[in-house]
């Protein structure tokens, strides 16, 4: 009986080894790419081949949807993810769900010729590429990144001139803000604390941190911090921000902030009532990010910007 079992175990070991060999073979085969006429370099450093120009685009990410609509490529879009709610035209496009837990059926049935999404949705990207759908993945983390992505999407969709126009308009708005701020004494710059809807704040590398600096403010978490630090009450009180900005989608009301930090704690933002809310959709890598910049500048320097 025991020897029978050893034989069985041996057979089973062979099966495992065969499986490992098979897996190695599969691991070394690559993905297939569809033929097309246009090659775009995405933020993964990959050259993605798409048709010239794609007419059945699926956009996974509200930033990209906004960009596509803003450059007039919305007629080339057949599907969006569930977070794409702006502009209102996006709501009439087919909804394929969340881009983290995407059911590939919803994408396949739309017969897309191109998908645009974020680089960190790695599973979704490899699933779609495994099905032969070209994926362009971007990772814009700053205003200049956003402009670069707008131009790239313009090239990919045949809307280059509209894209360049949009970028120039954005550039003008940025300069309108930064030019008024040249010559401001660094000692006089207001300190700011920004809070996201999930309760975290922003540090170096985050888009809102760049907005604060460009608008002439100083992010109290702007140095020596991770990208999305967990805020500490003591540090906020000690830093004494002059302005507090919170995502409007946060469940914390302005009164919650006053209570949390405490009246009479000596924090300027609380004592002077300078707690402002901004639509979180503006603080993303989309064309309206320059509007967010203007709002930050107005809150920091009300006497300079009306």
């Amino acid at each position, binding site marked *: 009986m*025991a020897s029978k*079992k050893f034989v*069985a*175990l041996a*057979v*089973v*070991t062979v*099966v*495992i080894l*065969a*499986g*490992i060999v*098979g*897996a190695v073979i*599969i*691991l070394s085969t690559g993905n297939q790419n569809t033929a097309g006429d246009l090659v775009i370099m995405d933020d993964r450093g990959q050259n993605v081949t798409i048709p010239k120009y794609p007419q059945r685009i699926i956009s996974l990410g509200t930033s990209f949807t906004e960009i596509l609509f803003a450059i007039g490529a919305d007629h080339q879009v057949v599907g969006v993810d*569930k977070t794409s709610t702006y502009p209102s035209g996006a709501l009439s496009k087919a*909804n*394929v*769900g*969340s881009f*983290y*837990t*995407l*059911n*590939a*059926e*919803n994408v*396949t*049935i*739309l*017969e897309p010729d191109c998908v645009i999404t*974020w680089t*960190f*949705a*790695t*599973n*979704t990207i*490899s*699933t779609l590429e*495994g*099905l032969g759908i070209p994926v362009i993945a971007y990772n814009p983390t700053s205003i200049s990144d956003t402009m670069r992505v707008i131009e790239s999407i313009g090239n990919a969709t045949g809307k280059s001139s509209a894209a360049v126009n949009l970028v120039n308009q954005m550039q003008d708005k940025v300069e309108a803000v930064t030019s008024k701020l040249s010559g401001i004494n660094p000692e006089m710059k207001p300190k700011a604390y920004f809070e996201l809807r999930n309760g975290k704040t922003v540090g170096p590398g985050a888009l809102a941190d760049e907005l604060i600096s460009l608008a002439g403010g100083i992010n109290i978490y702007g140095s020596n911090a*991770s*990208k*999305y630090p*967990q805020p500490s009450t003591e540090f906020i009180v000690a830093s004494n921000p002059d302005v507090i900005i919170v995502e409007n989608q946060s469940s914390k009301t302005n009164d919650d902030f006053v209570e949390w930090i405490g009246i009479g704690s000596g924090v300027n933002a609380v004592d002077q009532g300078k707690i402002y809310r901004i639509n979180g959709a503006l603080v993303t890598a989309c064309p309206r990010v320059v509007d967010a910049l203007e709002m930050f500048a107005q809150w920091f320097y009300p006497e300079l910007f009306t």
Partner: protein
Amino acid sequence: MEGPDIGVLHTKKLSLWLLIITVLILALLVTVILALMIGPVSISFGEILTILFGGDASISHKTIILNIRLPRILLGGLVGASLAIAGAAMQGLFRNPMASPYVLGISSGAAFGASLSIVLGFSIVTGQFATPVMAFAFAFMTLFLVYSIAKADGRVPVDTLLLAGIAIAAFFTALVSFTKYLAGEKLSAIVFWMMGGLWDSRWTFFAFALPMVVAGTAMILIFSRDLNVMMIGEDHAVNLGVNVPLVRNTILVASSLVTAAAVSVSGVIGFVGLIVPHIMRLFVGPDNRILLPASCLVGAIFMIWTDRIAGTIVSPEELPVGIITALLGAPFFLYLLKRRKGVTGW
């Protein structure tokens, strides 16, 4: 007066078991066919048959049936079968009804491996197998860690194994929390991975998991009779001629093998490994020779159906399948428990 002929009883029992297994295999096949009809996109049964037999159909429908639904159903079956048989084997080995495939902390180790890959981009291989390979490797590393900690004087008492498993699981869970803290915008990716789901099923993952699940299941089934004997106590089992260290180590390795294979491709799907063996025990009794294969087959059927529900009920969204398994499994199990009050299953 003559008692019943033990030979006849034995044959009757074996025929009954064979019947059960055959019925379950047929049920599994029917499940696979029916499940192909369910999904966010409606495709007629006739068209499904056409596609399966290599006929003509639109490219998108062909892709959906052959490259999305079919691998997902088969992978779901594989995952359900693995978790159920590993759960039953663990419950037998530890003589503990609360044991599940994750009792040795394998899921926490796998989650840590996955988080290293997803959040920090660190992996042994590149490409689509980056995360599954890391999850699998760390799952096995956890087994060896727990085993080495529990080993003392050449013996490995199961109670110590359990305690070591709890401690190691807590350790890895803390590490996963730390990587979540560092995650930034990749946080959602690791959270969804840990919730477990089959939305990312591919033929390559099926090929990766299949040989390991087949091998591990075979290893467990070979020792089902020895497991029966070990349930009366390890010392007694030794006296009855069971090679306890061999059986115990093989069952540990085999259960970990199938669990690791399942978790590496589908995340941590809870509940199936704990509840399916209990439900089957109420129907077929505690003899591992029928309980293990029956749990395996029913686990597959259960997983396929719950995954179909999870993938269609809130379309175009996906619900994590662990929610469905818990919502369906727990009340059904409680109902069975109430109905069969007098039956000793445990």
